């Protein structure tokens, strides 16, 4: 009974910090609209000069809060280990992919902050940091895709009569992975929907992942509820058996 | 809990000393900046926090006399006061920032926002602590030491604010 509290606490931690991250997302002046990859070095430098406070506020917030989503992912890992899959291997793969994905985001966040630290820096170097930040943030979707595919496979192979996560979560997970995949093209394209400020690479990718996180939250919550109910009935069964014996 | 409270008190002592050292280096700037603060909000916030501390103390008394529902109501009142404190604080922050006195404006405002920010974080933690206390009061066999420990934490938050109020708002 107290053990289950840990999962609920984890969910609430992630929900709370996730909400704060939403504020940080809105506060970052480089997201509305997303900065164009075709900005000149001087324009980029001017952006960091003019919006210094807002950039620092939102990126420090991201720095602090993004890793706080980890408890939610770890609840998913734990629930994946409970799935009736042939082995628990996907849970560990998922854990590994989550860690690498979070590391990439932490790096992108630092590049933004370093660029804003000295806006008076040589504009070419500011642009270098800005490119590093955007490319690290938008393009390496592989780890996210890996997470979602591991999760989807786990759900498909889960042979419980009542699966830990419903099958449609697997479908959403795969669809999200597909929606994020084209963002990798932003490493080479500088205009159009595939550029890092494009509809596909930025809005579709970010939006799809945000929606997916919300789905994951509710799926995890109902999995925890189900686990509690299962445990309660497991605890009853021996008693009933004992009662029958008498 | 006492270990945490004492440790925290000494950590804050270090912050206060560092603040005073910087104040010593530039007293005119600090005094000149102090005038931009709204003394009334600071004073009212002090009263709000003192009241909430008082409610918690009364709650502990009620819990000892086994009036658990009464105690829970006191704790709820204390949480409400804490929320009022934070609301006033947020209003004050927004107004100062709106007038251009932001975190980076000068050394005084740097300390002001950092110290009040850390204190606000302690209040947020205090909400969790008081929620635990309230939950404890709802159980039939509540543990007195948990309730007392939560109360001690909340009084510490109050105590730190009393010193902060003096240093940031009223010192001349």
């Amino acid at each position, binding site marked *: 009974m107290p053990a289950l509290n840990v999962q609920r606490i984890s969910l609430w931690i992630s929900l709370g910090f996730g909400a704060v991250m939403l504020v940080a997302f809105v506060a970052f002046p480089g997201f509305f609209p997303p900065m164009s990859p075709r900005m000149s070095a001087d324009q980029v430098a001017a952006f960091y000069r003019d919006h210094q406070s807002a950039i620092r506020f939102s990126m420090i917030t991201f720095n602090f809060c993004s890793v706080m989503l980890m408890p939610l992912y770890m609840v998913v890992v*734990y629930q994946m280990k409970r799935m009736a899959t042939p082995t628990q291997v996907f849970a560990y793969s998922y854990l590994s992919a989550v860690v690498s994905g979070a590391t990439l985001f932490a790096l992108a966040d630092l590049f933004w902050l*370093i660029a804003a630290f000295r806006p008076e820096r040589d504009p070419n170097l500011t642009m270098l940091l800005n490119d590093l930040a955007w490319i690290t943030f938008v393009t390496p979707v592989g780890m996210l895709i890996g997470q979602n595919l591991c999760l989807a496979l786990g759900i498909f192979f889960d042979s419980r009569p009542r699966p830990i996560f419903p099958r449609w979560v697997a479908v959403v997970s795969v669809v999200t992975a597909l929606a994020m995949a084209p963002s990798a093209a932003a490493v080479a394209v500088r205009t159009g929907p595939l550029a890092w400020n494009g509809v596909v690479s930025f809005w579709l990718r970010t939006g799809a992942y945000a929606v997916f996180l919300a789905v994951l939250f509710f799926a995890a919550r109902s999995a925890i509820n189900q686990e509690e109910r299962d445990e309660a009935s497991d605890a009853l069964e021996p008693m009933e058996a004992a009662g029958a014996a008498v | 809990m006492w270990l945490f409270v004492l440790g925290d008190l000494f950590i804050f002592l270090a912050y206060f000393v560092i603040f005073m050292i910087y104040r010593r280096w530039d007293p005119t700037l600090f005094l000149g900046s102090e005038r931009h603060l709204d003394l009334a909000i600071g004073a009212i916030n002090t009263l709000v926090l003192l009241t909430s501390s008082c409610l918690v103390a009364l709650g502990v008394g009620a819990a000892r006399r086994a009036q658990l529902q009464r105690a829970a109501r006191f704790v709820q009142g204390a949480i409400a006061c804490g929320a009022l404190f934070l609301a006033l604080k947020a209003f004050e922050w927004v107004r100062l920032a709106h007038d251009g006195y932001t975190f980076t404006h000068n050394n005084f405002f740097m300390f002001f926002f950092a110290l009040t920010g850390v204190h606000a974080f302690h209040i947020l933690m205090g909400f969790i602590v008081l929620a635990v206390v309230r939950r404890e009061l709802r159980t039939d066999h509540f543990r007195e030491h948990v309730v007392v420990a939560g109360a001690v934490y909340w009084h510490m938050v109050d105590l730190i604010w009393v010193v902060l109020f003096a240093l940031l708002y009223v010192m001349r």
Partner: protein
Amino acid sequence: MTAAPDRTGKRDLWICWWTAPVFYLLFGLIFVLLTRVMPPPRPSMSTAQIGAFFAEHRTTIQIGFALLIVVIAGSAVLSGLVAYQMKRMSVQPVFAYGYIATLAVGAVPGCLLCAISFLTATFRPDRDPHQIAMLYDVALLSFVGSLGCFAAQYLILAIAILLDKNKIFPTWFAYVSIWQIVTELLAAPVFIFKHGPFAWNGAIAFYEGTLLFGVYISCFIPLLRKAIQQQPSERLPA
């Protein structure tokens, strides 16, 4: 199987435990004596001064960080040991996984990026000084300013200790862990200030935080030792 003698039964745990004092000793040696990252050089240095800093300490930086990138895995061994002890707690292993995950994130931006940037900066001293100054910022801001991963780790550890009914670690250590969260919060302004107590070499952002980290780690290592000692050697949990 007969009960193995205590020492050999927990051999692996003791190997992990001994990495802790060795790793932190090396860590201190590298960061304080060799590479001069602790206490940190001033953020307000001019480009020329930064160049001079690297020129002066080039050899020791290279020795120190070359050593660090070899021994950094000590932190991974340690987080494995802590996670193992957390799995012995009465709480579900969710937090043990979280501990591994947050520290695995923290190793790259919080420690290795600093080493890599300093090494890159010293690799070609004749590089454009502005580029060297940028690497200097990257190194110090990532080292002092990777807040979230460590704050999350302390939060997870603190909550796990508070909820644990097996009392693997004493309750007071949860509070020591919570202070670390507060110091991480107070390190957030390093991204803003170049002078004063909140700069990356400031009295509050650096010295107070480091002091509290010293308290934390000098409590943690003996506590881990005690936790291993008190663990019954028969029936070691997986």
